[in-house]
Every structure is written in structure tokens, then in C-alpha cells.
């Protein structure tokens, strides 16, 4: 299916004859038939008389009980009471939310205060604000008013405009949504009212293809059986049809003719879109309601003419709206480390301020006697008759003011603009990831999605990968491959297709083609042999024991109709298609019966009971009343759960043969399932039925229900088993190479879920961690969703290493949320994983370009940008600081306040953002060819404490060069402050931009434009500032730029400041090149110096196999 060469090699290496190449996954079926105990078998469905009494194997009982105890008991306090068709009474006691929704955050009045309030949640902005406010105090007015407020005002304004626009769009869509029309029962008649006027308790009628206005419990539908089909695309992205049922008790009622009244008692609104628990008192009967009786807001009604229901949750209490919150925000590791360095910078800042204020204090002390009259100080004001201090608040206060003023002057030591730059860079990086053609999945027509915007760079540092197997490593495309029925192996499926024949009417043909085993087909047609009976039961089980809904689709040829099986599970679809091809075509399914076309003869089976599959029981069962009046229970489930309920007294040979086949299929990498059947005697059925009834009506107390299931299950018998399993290795193209490289010393650890129960949350965790860190691959099988998260937490809590979890199903959600980076695969198992993920993509194999290419780039770019921003701001602050030492510590700035403010906004911001988005250290090809290059991120080579301190040393040197060269060149000359300030400004800007240019790896035109453009822009800005006559620096630039000394200073500063850096850089690149450097040279010169000798510390690869 995919043309990746890696895949082909893996597949070929398996050499399994039963494989047919063009399928992405394979399915085998085996079946044993064992004898039923009842002895009431009539017709071909009797399987012989081996044992007369089933032996109970109740080993699974404990599990079921444990599980059922986890069901929430809802007492009256937590319940929500809804009086059907009586919204007044429903709403009088409790104010249930109306159905109008409000996703907009602000109104016109509240916009300004609320938006500002939200924006100031960022610490950075508060810092900004405090500084701006300090600057407004007259004693502290270092900068002009405009200059001090402008940057903050600008950022606030841009964000506010963006928020306002988004909110406007939300308001608009809310308005459209709220004024949609729905049919609601008012005064015994259905009337159209607007959605926002719907109240809980009202009865609503929805027609085909309409969207549900609120969450409602189905009362009746156009189908006599009470079934309704819904599409939940809007809710969870799944496009297949789901079946929902109206209860028989209400199905026959027509609310327009007879008044329905009843009471629904249900749980409080919650986010779980797959769960609902309630019961309904109607006509004196108590009926229990479950997830299959409720349809949710946002779903569309399909293939059902109409449906009537009662609103139970409305507006913001609907499950759709409760699920509307975004992914939880995470913070990247790089950012966390960066914050540590920011603390260092704060310490520097405070240190600088302390130095300045202490020196100032000393200066004031030393000149104490002279201050009164000194021309440049003039402490005393003689203008009034009594002499008083002029603008002098005492020694202590002066020092304190100088301290605060120095905080204002040196404020950009904390690179506030960095936070904004980082956001912009991440947006740019996300743009490139989303637009990457190589991460576009043709099959699902989906691009890569960045759901979390602030952890892009974490993708370059992943050390542990936790992967779900089902549907993630493997794709969830199922195909029936082979079967073992009654101990006989049928695994010679050939690629041919049988016309599905039905008697009379148009020819029905299954939509999906399935390979057929001729032998099995012949037996299934001839069902009067003992083999044939097994096969017959086997296929009835396949066709019946599922929740598939058959749909008939017209084709261009009027005589042929396609039958399409819609269902939530791809397993079931594959099995039903298989049954259809072998002549057991599921034609119709309602809540009460199913119709199966058996070899051209339509037979109707009554559905007497149905237990849907759940991950705890790992089984599904259905009780059918057959046309021959027998009652049979068909069970289908994972082998472990099935073997525990098999009647072991039966044909042991058959059991043994089946197990052998099972192992054979498994070892081929197929997924397997086991099906079983047992006939129930009327008394057994009665007993079961009564216990089922009582259990299911007990509100939420599902323990009893589970009890009855258990009882029932223990006596069921095995009729066969199906297996279906996909290859793991084959589905891991490329990724294989990345994570498993390392050659012969591969160590793998395999652990199963039952063992994990004993390990997690005990002292053994530590040992498991030690052991697993010695393994390259750890496989955990049969793990429950929470255990998956537990394993992730096990690693995450013990190391600083980055963890990544990837999965596609709802069972992976907890793991995805637990890991540092969560990736969802938008596969067939729904969109729950995607909704919880930070990134989502179409296929597992995109993980390779995502991590190796984009992750690497993101990490390199972001780390460089952070370091550079630290340097850039610190160098400027230091230049200001050195000058302060020559102004008797009074925080005069030669550089104009406008330049101080514009420095990190205009003069130097664009190039770092452009380079943060665009620069590539290595090409995609090199990164994919040498996966060990990924190690740079894992080892934090581009951002670490050492680099930070080295950068700071460089910063110190560069600031000294930038400051002291002009100082000494102009010492004792008639230079004025503004001119020298302009020189310092330009020197700093040119220096930091050339510094950046030295580190650029790929020069695009836009890079040139950004770097040289910034320098030009700085010149322009300085000129503009100097042509304003009311500023003290009027025309200063033009005077100083007319002298040769000025230009020689600029040149000398730039080169003098950067030569040490250049020399060190060359030396390191030549003598101690890192992998990236070597690969870069190899890329350019294509010579022999491939980084083959580089050592790779490779990731741990965890595969978490979920339930089967």
C-alpha cells in the first residue's frame, strides 16, 4: 500500500505465503467448534453431543466485578431531573442552561477591561507595565513618556485587534447558530422555534440530514424498530454512521396525539461524549437509558426520516460545548531552561542596578559639601526667600531612586521581545510543518496539524517514544485472511470475488472485495455436513455478533446494489464483509432483529440481548432467537478473554488444534479474534433475561448487570476463533531505522498489562525503570489506557528526557496528555486522540520527517534565537551601563530614549525572527540520511548552561569593544553626548547584526534583506530622530557622520568585537567539529567525511499494545 522501500523489505523478510501483498493488514480466522451442552439443538445448528453439562470457568469473574464497581453510582443529589414535555417544571427548581450558546468572550462593553485583564496574565507584560508606570513618576522619568509606553501599547494594541477580530467571528457564528430553527412541541403541535429558545425538557423533532440542536434522549423515530442513524463528524470527526435507539416503551407514542409525560433522571453534564447514564420513568415503568439512547448536539441525523427526543442538556451544558476547550497548554523544555537563564539575567540586572546605586551613594557622600552650589548639580534652590533643597530627597532616597531608574534604563536585560519573537517564530515553524508536502496524507486528505503552538522545539529533543500499536504503527485497515473453524485451518484465500446472489430483486453485492478460500466456500454452501454446521455457525456469528449497520447504495447499474457496512469498528466491518462473501450477508439490523441472507435465503433473527464490546471484558456477545426457535448466544472476543470462558470439557483435540492455528496466525503477524457459540435452553434464557432486566433498570448500578453477564458467560462455549493481527515491523517504515539502529545488541523487554498492575505504583517501578533503560525497545501488551499513561509517567518522572506519545484512539488520550509531546494520528479510530494531542498527522511514518527534520530544525532555530536574544539585549544594556559609570552614576543615556526603545523592536528584531523561521543547519536529505544528527537535540547541544555562559562572556567582550572604542577615540575631544550616542547606537546595531550574519548558515534573499535592511533601517531611524529640532540631539548624526573618525570607529568596533568570536568559531569547527558541522561540510563538498563515526545514543522505543 505504500511504496516505501523500507516497508517492502520488512514485509518480504517475513516470507509468509498466506499474505497477499496489496493489503495493508491481514486477517485470519480460525474456528473450533465445540459442542453445546443444551442438547436442544434442532437442525444444522446442533454441534453434536459431547458434554451434557457445561463446566464453569469463572476465572474472569473478579475482573468483571472490579470493572463494574468503577461505574459511577449516581444518587439523587447528583442527578438531573427532566420532566418530559414539561419544561416549566423541569426548569423551575434548577436553572438549567438555555440552548443559546456563547463562544464569544467579550461584549462591546467588557472588551477593553477583559481583554486587558487577559493579556496581563503574562508575566512579561506585567514587567513591562510596572516599568512603564515607574517611568511616569517625575522623580524617575528616565525616558520620555511616549518612548516608555510605546512598546507596551503597541503589543497590547496588536493583540487586542487580533482578539477583537477573532471574537467578532465567534459572535457572528454564535448568532447564526443560535437563530437556526428546530421543530419543538408546543401546545401539542410541532412549531418551528429558534435554537436558542429551546429549553431542557422540551420535545424536539429532527428530520433527516438536520443537525441536532441539543443533546436529547430519543423517544421515537420513523423506523418502527426505534433505530436512528447519526453521523458524529462534527463531534469526533468519525464519518461512519452510528446507531441510536429509542426505547420500545416510547417508540409507539406519537407526542402530537397523546401527551407523553415521564421523568428522566440522568447524570450531570459532563464531557464524556461516549458515556451517558440515566433512567426514565414512563407509564409507571422504569427504563434504563445508556449512551445508545442519546443523540448529541452537532450530530446529524442520517437515513432516518425523523426522530423525536427530549432535550436533556442544552446550550453550554451539551457535551459538544463542554468538549470545546482547546488542548491543554504545555511549555517546552527549552523554554523551561530558558526561564532558568532569565533568572540569571535578572540577577545580572539587579547586580548592575546595585552597582550603580551604591556608586552613586558613594559619589554623593564624597561630594557632599560641594553639591549645594556645584554648577552641574545645584542642590539648593535660592529662588525663594528661604533656601531649600531643589529636587533632592535625601541621601537614602536618592540612592533608592537611582536604583529604580537603573531598572528602567536596563530593563531590556530581560528580553521581553524574546517572548513575542518566539511566538512569531513558532507560528512560522508551524506554517512550514503544516505546509510540508511530505507530511500530507493523501488517503485521509489531511495535513499535519499543530494544535499546540508552544512546544515546536520539543520535537527536536525526544528521547523516549511511546507508541500505541493498533492503528498507529499499523493502519487500521482490516481484511479477512484466514480462519480455523472446528479445528480445521482455512488459510488459502485467493484473490477472487464471488457475486453475492440474493433471491429476487436487485442483486446485492458487498462493497468491499475479499479474498476467498475456495474450500471454505464450498463447505459453507454445503451446510449439512458436520464441518458445514461449524462453518454455518461461524459465519452467523461473524454476521450477527457486531454493531454494523448495513446500508444499500445504488450503483449506475440498476440491477446491482452495493451493500455497505457502516460501523465503528474496522474489525467488525472486515468480518461482516467476509461473512457476506461466503454467503452470509447481513441485510438489515434494527434494535430488535437482524436479517441475514444465508445462501440466498433471507432469515430473520430476533435480537434478545446484546452486550457491546468493551475494553474491560474484551468480548462482545449477542443472544439471538433463531428462525428455528432456538436461542443461541454468540460471543466474539480476544483470545485470552475467550479461552477463559470456554467449556474445557469439550473436544480437547479441537481446542488444541485451534490453539495451534492461533499461534501460527499470530506468528505471521495477524490480528486474531475468537468466536464462540452456545445454545441456551428456554429456562436458562428466562433466568438470564430476568436478571438482565432487573440489572439494567437499576439506576447506574451496573454491578448487577455485569453479574448476570458473568453468569451467562461462564457457560458459553467456543465455536471458533478468528485472528487478525497486523505486522508491527512492516508498519514502521523508516522509524525502524531511527529508533532501532544499533545493530546486534538489541535488547527488548516485553511486559504485559497484568504484570504492570503489580509494578506501577509500587517499589517495583524503580526496577522496571532501570531495566527498561537498558533496553532499546520495550513492548507492553494488553495495557489499559490509564496504564499507558502510567508508563509514560514512569519515565517522565524519573528523567529529564523528553517523552513523546503517539496514538490514534480514545484509549491513547491519557498517554498523549501525559507525555511531553503528544501526537495524534487521524486514523480510523476516531478523533479523540487528535483532540487531545499537541500535533496531529495522517500517518505514523510522518513521525520520521517530523522529528528528524522539522524537530531538528525547530530546536536548532529556537535555541540559537534564544541565545542570540540574550546576547543582543545584554550587549546593549552593558553599553548603557558602561556609560553610566562616566556620568557620576546618574543614568544619563547618551543613546536617545527612542533608540533604546526601538533597539529591540525595530533595529534588531526582524533578522532574528527571519532566521529563526528560515535558517536551516542541514538539508532534509542529510537529516534523513544520518538520523544520528538528531542526537544534537537530545544532548541539548545547541542550548545549555555552558553555551549560555560562553555567550555571556562574548557579550561582555563585545560590549566593552563597542563602548570603549568610541570613548577612547573621543576622549578629551569636543564631542557632544548626542553624537556619541548615535555612534554607540549604530555600533551596537551593526555589531549584533554582523554577529548574526556570521552564524547564518543559509543565506536566502530574504535573509540578506532582513540583516542589511535592519542596518539601513537603523540609520534611517537615527537620522529621523536627529532631524527633530525639539530633541537635544538635533542634527548630531549629520555632524558626526561627516567625520572619518566616526566611520573608522564603526569599522573598528565591528571587527574588533567579532574577531575573537570568529577565531574561536573557526578553531572549534576545525578541531572539534560536531556531527552537524561534519554533515554540513559533507553536504557542501560531498566528500568522504561522512559522519559515520559519530556515536549514537538512541532512543528508547516503547510500544504500548492496547487491548486487542
Amino acid at each position, binding site marked *: 500500500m505504500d511504496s516505501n522501500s523500507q516497508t517492502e523489505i520488512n514485509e518480504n523478510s517475513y516470507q509468509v505465503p498466506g499474505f497477499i501483498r496489496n493489503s495493508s493488514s491481514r486477517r485470519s480466522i480460525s474456528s473450533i467448534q465445540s459442542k453445546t451442552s443444551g442438547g436442544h439443538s434442532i437442525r444444522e445448528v446442533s454441534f453434536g453431543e459431547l458434554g451434557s453439562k457445561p463446566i464453569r470457568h469463572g476465572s474472569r469473574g473478579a475482573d468483571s466485578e472490579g470493572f463494574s464497581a468503577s461505574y459511577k453510582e449516581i444518587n439523587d443529589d447528583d442527578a438531573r431531573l427532566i420532566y418530559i414535555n414539561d419544561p416549566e417544571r423541569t426548569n423551575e427548581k434548577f436553572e438549567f442552561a438555555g440552548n443559546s450558546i456563547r463562544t464569544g468572550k467579550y461584549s462591546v462593553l467588557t472588551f477593553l477591561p477583559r481583554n486587558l485583564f487577559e493579556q496581563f496574565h503574562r508575566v512579561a507584560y506585567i514587567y513591562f507595565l510596572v516599568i512603564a508606570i515607574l517611568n511616569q513618576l517625575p522623580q524617575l522619568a528616565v525616558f520620555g513618556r511616549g518612548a516608555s509606553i510605546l512598546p507596551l501599547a503597541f503589543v497590547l494594541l496588536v493583540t487586542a485587534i487580533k482578539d477583537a477580530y477573532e471574537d467578532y467571528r465567534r459572535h457572528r457564528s454564535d448568532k447564526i447558530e443560535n437563530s437556526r430553527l428546530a421543530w419543538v412541541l408546543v401546545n401539542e403541535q410541532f412549531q418551528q422555534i429558534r435554537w436558542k429558545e429551546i429549553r431542557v425538557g422540551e420535545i424536539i423533532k429532527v428530520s433527516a440530514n438536520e443537525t441536532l440542536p441539543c443533546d436529547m434522549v430519543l423517544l421515537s423515530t420513523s423506523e418502527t424498530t426505534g433505530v436512528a442513524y447519526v453521523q458524529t*463528524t462534527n463531534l469526533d470527526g468519525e*464519518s*461512519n*454512521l452510528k446507531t441510536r435507539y429509542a426505547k420500545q416503551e416510547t417508540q409507539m407514542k406519537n407526542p402530537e396525539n397523546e401527551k407523553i409525560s415521564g421523568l428522566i433522571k440522568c447524570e450531570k453534564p459532563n464531557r464524556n461524549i461516549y458515556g451517558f447514564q440515566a433512567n426514565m420513568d414512563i407509564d409507571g415503568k422504569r427504563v434504563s437509558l445508556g449512551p445508545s439512547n442519546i443523540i448529541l448536539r452537532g450530530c446529524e441525523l442520517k437515513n432516518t426520516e425523523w426522530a423525536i427526543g427530549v432535550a436533556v442538556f442544552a446550550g453550554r451544558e451539551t457535551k459538544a460545548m463542554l468538549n470545546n476547550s482547546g488542548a491543554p497548554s504545555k511549555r517546552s523544555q527549552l523554554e523551561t531552561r530558558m526561564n532558568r537563564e532569565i533568572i540569571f539575567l535578572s540577577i545580572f540586572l539587579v547586580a548592575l542596578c546595585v552597582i550603580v546605586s551604591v556608586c552613586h551613594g558613594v559619589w554623593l557622600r564624597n561630594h557632599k559639601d*560641594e553639591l549645594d*552650589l*556645584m*554648577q*552641574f*548639580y*545645584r542642590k539648593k534652590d*535660592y*529662588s525663594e526667600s528661604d533656601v531649600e533643597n531643589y*529636587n533632592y530627597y535625601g541621601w537614602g532616597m536618592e540612592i533608592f531612586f537611582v536604583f529604580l531608574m537603573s531598572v528602567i534604563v536596563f530593563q531590556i536585560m530581560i528580553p521581553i521581545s524574546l517572548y513575542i519573537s518566539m511566538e512569531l517564530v513558532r507560528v512560522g515553524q508551524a506554517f512550514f510543518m503544516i505546509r*510540508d*508536502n511530505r507530511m*500530507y496524507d*493523501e488517503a485521509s*486528505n*489531511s*495535513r499535519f496539524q499543530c494544535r499546540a503552538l508552544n512546544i515546536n522545539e520539543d520535537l527536536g529533543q525526544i528521547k523516549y517514544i511511546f507508541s500505541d500499536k493498533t492503528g498507529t504503527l499499523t493502519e*487500521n*485497515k482490516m481484511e479477512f485472511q484466514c480462519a480455523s473453524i472446528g479445528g480445521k485451518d482455512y488459510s488459502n484465500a485467493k484473490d477472487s470475488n464471488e457475486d453475492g446472489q440474493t433471491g429476487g430483486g436487485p442483486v446485492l453485492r458487498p*462493497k*468491499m472485495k475479499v479474498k476467498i478460500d475456495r474450500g471454505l466456500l464450498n463447505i459453507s454452501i454445503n451446510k449439512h455436513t458436520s464441518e458445514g454446521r461449524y462453518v454455518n455457525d461461524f459465519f452467523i456469528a461473524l454476521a450477527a455478533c457486531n454493531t454494523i449497520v448495513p*446500508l444499500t447504495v445504488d450503483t449506475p447499474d440498476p440491477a446491482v446494489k452495493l451493500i*455497505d457496512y*457502516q460501523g465503528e469498528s*474496522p474489525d467488525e466491518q472486515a468480518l461482516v464483509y467476509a461473512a457476506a462473501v461466503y454467503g452470509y450477508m447481513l441485510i438489515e439490523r434494527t434494535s430488535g432483529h437482524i436479517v441475514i441472507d444465508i445462501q440466498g435465503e433471507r432469515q430473520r433473527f430476533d435480537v434478545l440481548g446484546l452486550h457491546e464490546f468493551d475494553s474491560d471484558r474484551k468480548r462482545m456477545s449477542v443472544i439471538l432467537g433463531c428462525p428455528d426457535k432456538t436461542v443461541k448466544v454468540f460471543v466474539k472476543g480476544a483470545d485470552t478473554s475467550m479461552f477463559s470462558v470456554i467449556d474445557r470439557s469439550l473436544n480437547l483435540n479441537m481446542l488444541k488444534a485451534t490453539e495451534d492455528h492461533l499461534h501460527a496466525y499470530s506468528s505471521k503477524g495477524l490480528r486474531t479474534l475468537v468466536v464462540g457459540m452456545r445454545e441456551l435452553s428456554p429456562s436458562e434464557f428466562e433466568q438470564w433475561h430476568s436478571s438482565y432486566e432487573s440489572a439494567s433498570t437499576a439506576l447506574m448500578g451496573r454491578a448487577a448487570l455485569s453479574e448476570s453477564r458473568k453468569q451467562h458467560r461462564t457457560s458459553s462455549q467456543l465455536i471458533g476463533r478468528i485472528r487478525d493481527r497486523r505486522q508491527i515491523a512492516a508498519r514502521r517504515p523508516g522509524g525502524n531505522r531511527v529508533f532501532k539502529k544499533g545493530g546486534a545488541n538489541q535488547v527488548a523487554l516485553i511486559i504485559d498489562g497484568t504484570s504492570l498492575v503489580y509494578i506501577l505504583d509500587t517499589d517495583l517501578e524503580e526496577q522496571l525503570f532501570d531495566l527498561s533503560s537498558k533496553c532499546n525497545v520495550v513492548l507492553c501488551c494488553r495495557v489499559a489506557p490509564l496504564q499507558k499513561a502510567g508508563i509514560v509517567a514512569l519515565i517522565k518522572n524519573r528523567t529529564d528526557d523528553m517523552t513523546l506519545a503517539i496514538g490514534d484512539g480514545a484509549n491513547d488520550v491519557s498517554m498523549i496528555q501525559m507525555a511531553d509531546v503528544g501526537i495524534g494520528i487521524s486514523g480510523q479510530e476516531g478523533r479523540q486522540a487528535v483532540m487531545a494531542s499537541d500535533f496531529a498527522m495522517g500517518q505514523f511514518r510522518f513521525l520520521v520527517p517530523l522529528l528528524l527534520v522539522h524537530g531538528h530544525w525547530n530546536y536548532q532555530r529556537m535555541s540559537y534565537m534564544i541565545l542570540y536574544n540574550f546576547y543582543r539585549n545584554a550587549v546593549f544594556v552593558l553599553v548603557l551601563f558602561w556609560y553610566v559609570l562616566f*556620568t*557620576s552614576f546618574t543614568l*544619563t543615556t*547618551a543613546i536617545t530614549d527612542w533608540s533604546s526603545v526601538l533597539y529591540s523592536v525595530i533595529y534588531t528584531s526582524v533578522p532574528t525572527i527571519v532566521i529563526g523561521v*528560515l535558517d*536551516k543547519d542541514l538539508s*532534509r536529505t542529510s537529516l534523513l540520511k544520518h538520523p544520528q544528527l538528531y542526537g544534537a537535540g537530545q544532548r541539548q547541544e545547541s542550548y545549555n548552561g555552558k553555551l549560555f555562559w560562553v555567550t555571556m562572556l562574548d557579550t561582555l567582550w563585545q560590549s566593552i569593544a563597542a563602548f570603549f572604542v568610541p570613548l577612547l*577615540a*573621543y*576622549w*578629551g*575631544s*569636543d564631542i557632544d553626548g548626542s*553624537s*556619541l550616542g548615535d555612534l554607540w547606537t549604530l555600533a551596537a546595531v551593526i555589531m549584533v547584526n554582523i554577529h548574526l550574519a556570521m552564524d547564518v*548558515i543559509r*543565506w*536566502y534573499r530574504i535573509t540578506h534583506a532582513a540583516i542589511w535592511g535592519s542596518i539601513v533601517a537603523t540609520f534611517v531611524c537615527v537620522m529621523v530622530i536627529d532631524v527633530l*529640532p*525639539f530633541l*537635544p540631539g*538635533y*542634527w548630531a548624526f549629520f555632524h558626526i557622520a561627516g567625520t*572619518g573618525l566616526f566611520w*573608522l*570607529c564603526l569599522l*573598528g568596533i565591528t571587527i574588533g568585537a567579532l*574577531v575573537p568570536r570568529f577565531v574561536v568559531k573557526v578553531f572549534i569547527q*576545525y578541531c572539534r567539529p560536531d556531527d552537524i558541522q561534519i554533515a554540513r*561540510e559533507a553536504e557542501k*563538498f560531498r566528500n568522504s567525511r561522512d559522519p559515520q563515526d559519530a556515536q549514537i545514543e538512541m532512543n528508547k522505543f516503547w510500544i504500548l499494545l492496547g487491548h486487542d
Partner: protein
Amino acid sequence: MSSGDGSSEPSSKISKISKKPRYSRFTQQELPACKPILTPGLVITILISLAIIFIPIGLSSISASENVVELVDRYDDVCIPSNSSNHDEKIGFIQDAATNKTCFRTWIVPKKMNHPIFVYYQLDNFYQNHRRYVKSRSDHQLWSPKSERATKLCEPEAQNDDDKPIVPCGLIAWSLFNDTYRFSRNDDAIEINKKDIAWGSDRTKKFGSDVYPKNFQTRGLIGGAKLNESIPLSQQEDLIVWMRTAALPSFRKLYGRIETDLEANDKITIEIQNNYNTYSFNGRKKLVISTTTWIGGKNDFLGRMYMTVGGTSLFFAIAFSILFVIKPR
């Protein structure tokens, strides 16, 4: 999901507009780029060319600086009565308006000085860049007579005792330097041209031609020079020069130009009116005459710095060459 076997196709009545990202070299990050690599050749070329550029510039700056003839004379410590040795006596002398503060200095010109020769006064330890001082001015008032009351920042020299605005207000103007110099050679006066010593831009755009000094230095405490109230500010060039505050605590200000050449061994006599009080804060006053070249006044630093950078580059060029030869990759 699948398109191959169509297992889920009927559900897709949703139109299949492909979301495939449109290919462009930009979005795929495949833009053409230049990837410079620091090869040994390139490194040596860069370092050598730096040396080639820097060393000659350094040499020529040094020689230019050598060619500058500069005479500096500190006079604050000699132009006081020899009996006033302690601090208070010096201050008492300088603050006494009645005493004669004339002082004569004699210089021998060491080398020929071609005109124009710039006359500067130099103040050391005078923080013209002190925050309190720098802010104490009103640019609006200097430019326009209408803004003469815009004296908010000029305290404590904003208004006189009758609440009339002082023009020009503020500490900078108040502390205007007021020593004067007269040069003579062999009893012939050497004229000092005090025209155009201030920036033209300041004279035309910053100091108004219709703004006249008012109420200036009329109060008890005199900070420095007085201004002729009949001359507009735009022509008060000493004030304009003074008000372009210096960047550093040790600075020179242009006093005037000598438009004749001074020959070697010329004996110059300077008559100094030592009025300005630097004694109260231990400041120093110097008189400087200097010629200029293309790098300005006498300044060895720049040349030395260029020589150092060029020399360092050359050193590393050689060092790297040796490294590349000894330890080839």
C-alpha cells in the same frame, strides 16, 4: 480514510477538495541559498584581508595624529594668587567679583602650526552629562519667544525673583563658561575668530533669531557668564557651543579659531581672565590650541587599535595556516 478499497467511501459526501499543500520552494523550505562554509582557505583569506585593511589604516591614523600640533596648558592652578593654597581660599578668590583675575601665560610654539588653529578650553571633572544638568534646559524656549514660559524643567533657574521667566533658563545656560583669552605674538594681538564656532544647524533651527536673553544671571547666585541682552540667542555662539552638552566628564569646547599660521618657536602670550569657578568641585581648566587633520585632533588610540586588530588578524592567519598544515583534516 481509505480510498484504495473504499471501505468508508459512502460517508464522504463531503466534497473531496484536496488539502494537499500547494508546492512551492518556499513552503517546502527549498529556496535556493548560499551556504558559506568556513574552509581553511576562506578563513585565511578573511584574516589576511582584515590585516591588509587594518594595518595601513592604523599606520596612517598614527601618522595623522603625529602631525597634529597641540598645545595644552592647565591654568586653574597657576592663575590664582600664590598665597591662596587651600580650598576655601581658592573659592574665596574666584567668588570675589572685585579682584583682578587677569593672568598671563607664555607659550613657545614647538612646531609650525598651519591655520586654522582651533582654540579650545578644556574642563576636567565637570559632569556636563549629569542627569540633573542635562535635563535642565528648555529647547522650546530657546527657539521661540512664545514659549518663553516653558521653563518647567529649568528649576531652580526657571524664573527670577519676580516670577519672570529667565531666558535662557536652566542650569546649563546658568553655568555658562566665562573665562576669556587674548592671544598676542610679540605684542601683536592675534585675532581669535569666534564666528561660526557653533553648529550651523543649532544657529538656524535651535536657537531663535528673535529670542533675546532676559532676566539672565540677575539673581544673587551667579553661575557663569552674562549675556548681552541685545544680541539674539542665535548669535550667542559661546552659549550655543556650551549648550551642546559634552558626552564625557572631561571635555573641550571650541573657543575660537586663529586664522593665521604660527611659526615654530613663536612666543605666544595669553591673557586669561580666570573667572570660572572649578575650584569648588576640584575641576581643572585647560587652554588648548590645536591643528586638525582628517582624524580630528591628536588621538593615538584609534591608530593603535587598528594596528592591534590588524596584527591580531595577521597573527591568527599565520597561526591557522600552521594549524592547517600541521594538522590537516
